[in-house]
């Protein structure tokens, strides 16, 4: 690249925010912060640089690597959750687990992602995040979705919707299908490709198409349950019978959560099969979309084994991150 160009311009995916954009960002941050503090969240500030291993919870790491003067690899953070949990656990070393109570933490910080795309995308994203540690997942997720919805109502001028699901349904499918392309197929909601995997397990074209479609493009709860029960009645082999039963059993948890959130009149809907390329989710999972922005700006869920990964303490944890930068552009 021409030296003059590099001297005068910002790198692709990074923006210099002018006074107006900075003001808009500052307003949204302030509003978000007020809501989080009111709900009992306390601020933490993780470092911008950390060991790359911290961020290997992503399938494609998408992080910027830097090297210090001694040749040690470091990385610009692309996810704050792991840093918060890691930091929180370090605080609690040598403390009796019985003394650990619920903890609500929040952060406001930019994350950096080396996104490989063939069109401009933000590589520096200002994020607000909430981590609810020590609370069982259903209660925590209800609280977090309510909280995220309150924030979105205030900081987002566009309509928004939150989709909820359960990563365990994906795990069941993964166990039964054992296919390395499955993450991409589910991420793309690729119904024809998923149907092909069912066909490989001996199901008819018709049943494969139906099973795949009902998993990826679910209708309202009752309609979905009706369709699923019909599939169960007409199962085609033992393998099919077992997978249908297991998925239905697990879907009860997220369907129940969906009912609770609907009662609270939150703009949510349920999808049986959600998957994102972050490994630490263990159960409920949600994402929020706004109109005119193609990718989700809100991502969250429960990660009940993350605390124990950094300690011998077994504590449930849940949280979300909200991308604020796309809302000011």
């Amino acid at each position, binding site marked *: 690249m021409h030296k003059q160009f590099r001297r005068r311009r910002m790198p692709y995916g990074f923006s210099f925010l002018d006074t107006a954009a900075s003001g808009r960002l500052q307003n949204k941050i302030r509003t978000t912060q007020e809501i989080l503090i009111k709900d009992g969240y306390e601020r933490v500030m993780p470092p911008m640089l950390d060991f790359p291993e911290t961020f290997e919870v992503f399938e494609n790491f998408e992080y910027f690597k830097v090297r210090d003067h001694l040749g040690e690899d470091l990385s610009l953070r692309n996810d704050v959750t792991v840093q918060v949990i890691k930091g929180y656990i370090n605080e609690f070393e040598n403390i009796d687990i019985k003394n650990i109570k619920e903890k609500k933490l929040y952060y406001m910080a930019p994350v950096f992602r080396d996104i490989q795309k063939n069109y401009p995308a933000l590589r520096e994203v200002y994020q607000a995040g909430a981590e609810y540690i020590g609370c069982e997942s259903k209660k925590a997720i209800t609280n977090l979705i309510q909280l995220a919805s309150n924030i979105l109502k205030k900081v987002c001028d566009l309509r928004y919707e939150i*989709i909820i699901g359960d990563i365990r349904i994906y795990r069941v499918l993964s166990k039964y299908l054992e296919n390395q392309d499955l993450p991409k197929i589910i991420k793309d909601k690729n*119904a024809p490709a998923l149907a092909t995997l069912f066909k490989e397990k001996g199901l*008819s*074209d018709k049943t494969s*198409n139906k099973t795949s479609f009902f998993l990826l*493009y679910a209708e309202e709860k009752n309609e979905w349950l009706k369709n699923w029960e019909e599939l169960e009645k007409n199962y085609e082999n033992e393998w099919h019978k077992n997978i249908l039963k297991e998925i239905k059993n697990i879907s009860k948890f997220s369907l129940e959560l969906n009912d609770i959130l609907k009662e609270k009149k939150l703009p949510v809907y349920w999808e049986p099969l959600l998957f994102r390329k972050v490994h630490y989710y263990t159960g409920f999972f949600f994402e929020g*979309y706004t109109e*005119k922005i*193609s*990718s989700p700006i809100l991502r969250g869920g429960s990660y009940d084994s993350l605390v124990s990964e950094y300690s011998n303490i077994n504590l449930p944890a849940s949280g979300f991150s909200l991308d604020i930068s796309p809302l000011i552009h």
Partner: protein
Amino acid sequence: MDHTLKIALPKGRMSEESIEFFYNQNISSLKNVSENRQLIFNDEVKKIQYLLIRSKDVGTYVEQGAADIGVIGYDLLLENSFDVFVPASLPFGNCRLSVAHPEKFNNWKKMKKLRVATKYPKITSKYFFEKGINIQMINLYGSIELAPLTDISDVIVDLVSTGQTLKAHNLYESDVILESNAQIILNSSSYVFHKKRITNILNKILNVSLSTNAKNN
């Protein structure tokens, strides 16, 4: 049904087949593609706006949210990795991506340095890599059949429908890399905000494929 749904179609035969299919499934009230060469035309009854664009651009239009829905060949979907949802296959646009060669290169699998001309570099390199064949890729944008005739390449990888074009250029189809057909793609945000309407359309498409399955079984 306030929102006008934007559907991106690839210019040419696939757009005609798409409109006819949507009309037959009562998704659209238009029977034909606009005859006055307009690239944007509206179905006022069903509140749909059609965008006629280059086949390669359909994925980008849908990915970027300029269109809610698109129709695209499976070959292009696989080659370009667009960030879109893929809910259904459509019963048209059937063709295959194949290796074709002139008669003198019958033994292309044994050649030490194979020159391959294609407009599908990603699929092609993956295919030959998995076969353990070293290739030199020649990226072209069209008229691929000319490459072996002008000695730019030894073989080509291109879409084959009837095989007439290959025959006309004295080329022989050998390995089929993949079978392709038309696919529906969705912008993820559009799906979230117009779920009911889009699911309704998808259900109509699913029913067609289920009835096709029933006939085939």
